[in-house]
């Protein structure tokens, strides 16, 4: 009696895990991570989460929730509201349309796809922020974020794969 309901709860937990991870990563993006010289660079963690889970479990990644999580990230970080949901939905759209290409192939291919996503994200952000600020903004920080996001991707994916196997076995 108890075991089946426990199993059901576990499987339900597994189903909300992808969205939950995107959300936790979105909130982590404002963690005080300080580096010398006032440079506080945080990799775009929620982008990694959306990209991975859209490729492997698009059914558990509803766009409306991606939008909401992106909006919350913007509000909490005090950034330009609307930018992060736009970028996350862009990544979602790309991953959804190309996922057949990445499924069952070596990881390097998915990483290459992620390279394109991060590149597009960085360029689009720079253009939009420069338009809002009405002046070309410095490129150093976006470049640093681009590099850290791309390089940390394998590590974060390893974490995702472990979670994926534990919580959603055989799927």
């Amino acid at each position, binding site marked *: 009696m108890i075991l089946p309901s426990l199993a059901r709860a576990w499987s339900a937990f597994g189903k909300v895990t992808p969205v939950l991870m995107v959300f*936790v990563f979105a*909130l*982590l*993006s*404002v*963690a*005080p*991570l*300080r*580096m*010398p*010289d*006032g*440079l*506080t*660079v*945080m990799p775009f963690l929620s982008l990694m989460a959306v990209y991975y889970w859209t490729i492997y479990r698009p059914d558990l990644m509803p*766009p*409306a929730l991606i*939008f909401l999580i*992106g*909006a*919350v990230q913007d*509000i*909490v*970080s*005090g*950034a*330009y*509201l*609307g*930018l992060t*949901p*736009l970028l996350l*939905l862009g990544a979602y*759209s790309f991953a959804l349309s190309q996922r057949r290409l990445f499924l069952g192939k070596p990881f390097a291919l998915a990483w290459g796809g992620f390279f394109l996503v991060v590149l597009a994200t960085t360029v689009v*952000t720079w253009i*939009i*922020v420069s338009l*809002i*600020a009405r002046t070309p*903004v*410095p490129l*150093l*920080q*976006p470049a*640093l*974020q681009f590099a850290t996001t791309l390089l940390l991707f394998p590590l974060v994916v390893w974490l995702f794969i472990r979670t994926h196997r534990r919580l959603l076995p055989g799927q």
Partner: protein
Amino acid sequence: MKPRVGSVSRLAAPLRAALNRFAFASLIGACFLLLVIQRAEIQVLERLRVATVDFFAPAVDLLSSPVARVSAMAEDLRAVFTLRDENLLLKAEVERLRQWRDVAQRLDVENRSLRTLVNYAPPPGGRQITGRVVADAGGAYVRNLLLAVGSSQGVVRGLAAVSGEGFIGRVTDVGERTTRVLLITDLNSKIPVAVGTRGERAVLAGDNSALPRLLYLTQENTIAPGDLVLTSGHGGLLPPGLPIGVVETVSERGVTVRPLADWQRIDHVRLLDYGLTQSSTGDLPASAPPPRIVTTPR
């Protein structure tokens, strides 16, 4: 019955796909709409934004504390290796500051006697609110801090925020429990300042880099590297005379300023309330309010 269900589902599949596509397009549209209207400062939207920050602040605090701890540990570890050098530096600094203390004491005495001569009325004493830093938005395009104090502790918009070293920014959003401080390095930060001993007027503008720039300097300015940059108090929003930074470089491309604040070590921020933010609506209080210090519990 069966064939009808089949035909409905055959019809429904493309319909659902079209609906999904429409929903996705409207979400993208909503993103652009938000981007366009955020500058309009719509009252309802602003209140919703502040309430959202208030709501998520405890979660952010919880999530960020391990990150902050690891970050602090790495910093401590690095400090151990530079202990000897730092000690020598500090000894030299103490020696230098002793001399300055003597100068300050002499000037203080002189100042007091001169003040009695001219019947000078000192400015009203301020109120201080100390807030713990909960979040440090280090996106590539924003520079702000989220503090664990809010309107319930008496924070209002526009207060000056200082770290141990100097002025770091201005309060832009106030929730019930949270306060956002826009740092001087942010793209949207513009602070009226006075530079050097001559107190030349300028505006300190952030550009997301570590070194904000001075704008609107006069042609015949005499600014040189090493000049101190202070708030000027122009515009009446900020108290004058708070130290901000030191002029770093002077070139044709502009004047950059190195902030005094040590961004790596900002854990607590003091907000200074001199009653300046309300002065536009009413007269200044006749007598100075007694200094009061409010500290938030951890």
